[in-house]
């Protein structure tokens, strides 16, 4: 059964001065799919995500979320997206709960639904005893959990996670990976990472991006087959062409 396309990116281009950051990015994410964006540092993963989230305007190309164009109706698109940005922060003097509540309110979630969702997220992520603590007083791992929590509290059809496990300890990485494993059936997730094992474990399909271009996309097996390698890491190294 072919599932409905939730995110469509076609011919996405973005230039910063002399640098062509994105040079014709095309991919689609379908409902219930965890789609990985894999690439070395500076490949264009974060720029792609920033374009999808309307933080920056692309020079050219099409981005649609559930059939709504980012260019023509960015606010309606943003209502459908929950985001965890790379190195992103939250308000340090607000508590974990207040941060999640603020983001929920900004996304139009109202009333007791917010509290119910925060309760559920805190239980799932093990944030119960930290929810009343100011964000600045949380450990890096718990901060990342709260960042994930603020994206989930919106209950979006599309969840965008830009390297959410970078710099975290192994137990926290596992909590986040387990959570993503559970929720990926219910929603669409665009997951940017450069950790191969994570991509292999979590992603239903993925795209390998380098120098602003997608060099391969498909399931892990399809990519390994295309590259003629045994595992994703070898395929990645061969496809980005730097260490082959």
């Amino acid at each position, binding site marked *: 059964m072919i599932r409905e396309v939730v995110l469509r990116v076609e011919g996405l281009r973005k230039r910063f001065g002399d640098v062509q950051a994105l040079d014709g990015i095309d991919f689609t994410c379908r409902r219930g799919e965890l789609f990985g964006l894999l690439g070395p540092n500076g490949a264009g993963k974060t720029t792609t995500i920033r374009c999808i*989230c309307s*933080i920056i305007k692309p020079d050219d190309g099409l981005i649609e979320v559930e059939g709504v164009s980012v260019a023509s109706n960015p*606010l309606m*698109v943003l209502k459908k997206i929950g985001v965890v940005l790379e190195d992103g*922060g939250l308000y340090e*003097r607000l508590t974990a709960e207040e941060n999640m509540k603020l*983001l929920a309110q*900004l996304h139009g979630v109202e009333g007791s639904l917010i509290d119910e969702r925060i309760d559920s997220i805190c239980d799932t992520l093990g944030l119960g005893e930290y929810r009343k603590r100011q964000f600045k007083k949380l450990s890096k791992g718990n901060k990342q959990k709260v960042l994930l929590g*603020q994206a989930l509290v919106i209950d979006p059809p599309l969840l965008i996670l830009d390297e959410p496990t970078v710099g975290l300890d192994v137990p926290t990485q596992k909590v986040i990976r387990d959570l993503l494993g559970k929720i990926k059936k219910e929603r669409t997730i665009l997951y940017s990472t450069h950790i191969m094992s994570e991509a292999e474990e979590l992603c239903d399909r993925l795209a390998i991006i380098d120098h602003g271009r997608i060099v391969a996309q498909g399931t892990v097996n399809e990519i390994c087959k295309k590259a003629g390698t045994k595992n994703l890491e070898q395929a990645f190294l061969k496809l980005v062409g730097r260490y082959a």
Partner: protein
Amino acid sequence: MLKGIGLIYRKEMWTALRERRTLIFLFLFPLLVWPVFVVLPWFLIGGKERRAQAQPSKVALVSAYPELEKEFEASDKLQLVRLEDSVSAALQQRKAHCVVYVDSLASDSLVTYARILYDPIQTESRTAADKVELVLSQYERKIVIERLAQQGVPERMLEALSYRRQNAMGQNQMLGYFLGFIIGMFVVMGSMMGSMAVVIDSTAGEKERKTLELLLTAPIPRSSIMFGKYLAGVTFAFISPILTALGMSLAASFVVPVLVSSGGSVDLSGLISPGKILIILLVILLMAAFIAALQMTVAVRAHSNR
């Protein structure tokens, strides 16, 4: 759009009021630091002048006129001392508060020339010079009267016009001057300082802490984000000068009695009517809106709050 502005405004206010730096600029400076800075010098300078006036000033007289020396000795405001060092050394070491040189009189001249050497930086020296001037003018008048008497002219011929200077302003007018001029200046400063930390923190600070990008992914217009932040800046730029005016008014009620030398407290109620308060608040609001806009224009271009 309004809901978005409200949410951003509430967030900015809430985060700012939890920041120690904001509270210091908003409450501590206007209500305590600035009033103390204004009141303290008045009392320190006033107290020093009062002491200098009350005590006899030490004066070194260099003169060949024993009569003049007697006049100085007779004055309870002066204490004659010997000039043992140079004039500047005597003044610096405060062995003398001022030195008076009286030049020798030419045989055909009716005028004696005196020079009062003093240190204008020292309150005691300035006061001593004033006292010496008074004694010299009294002595001059005495000589003139004697000379006129020798010529058969009565003393009353000297009195053609009598005048004196008198403060025609009451305490309230003095307070009005104080509030209008000195406090006005502090109110502008209060407005700028009150909102500066909040405006910078909510713009450049958000960029630096990387929270702005997440805020930009919220489905509200960017103008709502900007207006919410701007209104928070205006609120602080508005509250801070009001607190400053309050603190400075209290300070004024101490300073003005010293200015008019009458002591006692000052009644503010007669000076400020509800109508005037409304006008003042409106002016402060407009000024706050302008200052916050100005600060925001600069702060949004910065990449960090340092």
